[in-house]
């Protein structure tokens, strides 16, 4: 099952954030212990682990992009 990943998946109730770095590439397998990306708010950079196990199928946002909470960041095909 494909699942879109949003800022809300990282549990911080952020309105928006700027992507700093992807720690994975398209087609990478990730577990929910792997760091997926780092993003920055006004005061903090957060290195955030993946919320799910699966295969990264899309990275929608690029480093430097500012995204809001409605915008999907990536898609992961979740392992059954």
């Amino acid at each position: 099952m494909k699942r879109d990943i949003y800022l809300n998946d990282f549990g911080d109730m952020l309105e928006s954030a700027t992507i700093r770095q992807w720690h994975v590439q398209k087609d990478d397998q990730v577990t929910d212990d792997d760091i997926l990306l780092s993003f920055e708010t006004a005061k903090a950079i957060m290195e955030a682990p993946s919320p799910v196990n699966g295969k990264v199928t899309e990275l929608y946002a690029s480093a430097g992009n500012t995204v809001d909470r409605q915008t999907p960041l990536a898609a992961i095909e979740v392992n059954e």
Partner: protein
Amino acid sequence: MSLRYAIRRMGLCDYRQTLNDMRAFTYNRSPDTPDEFWLVEHQPVYTQGEAGSPAHILRDNGIEVVATDRGGQVTYHGPGQAVIYPLIDLKRHQLGMRTFVYMLEQAVIDWLAARDITAVRVEHAPGVFVGERKICAIGLRSYRRYVYHGLALNIDMDLSPFNDINPCGFQRLKHTNVSEYTKNYSLVDAQFGVCRGLIDQLDGARYAQKRHEPETAG
């Protein structure tokens, strides 16, 4: 799990050494590692945020610029500034980063208020201000929800090195010291006092049925 905190008073520290030590602590900690607060002063140094713009460093005055991995833009640290590094597991406290930043600011505002200094947050300008002058800077990073970096509260420091940067990316931002408003202070009192205020909020948040979420933060 009972909450335990280690508070380490470390005195005057070299910035690079402290940064290395914070990273080593954070990247090696586990869900069982107690939170720590590191209370330090730094020798004169500019620190640049991971995505900070070099354009905000206006001239080379001989003070070293260290590239770091926190959020935000360039700032200055020097003797007479109370630096507090809260090495906190946000997951254990069931806190979001936004709420945690709000708590840091509140701990500083409350400590100042106890000395009859009225301090405020300013929208879109991280930190704590007295009037339009900045008294406390905040910059953080988290790794797997383990926070490091922290806050710097100006107690009685030489503010002139701020003139050679756009602190936090703001032009002509003015700074101030606690010592300009009161005689009732010491750097160590400020460190322990702000730390205690933060612990009270962390323990309160853990046991409160409904956590307070800030309406404006970020």
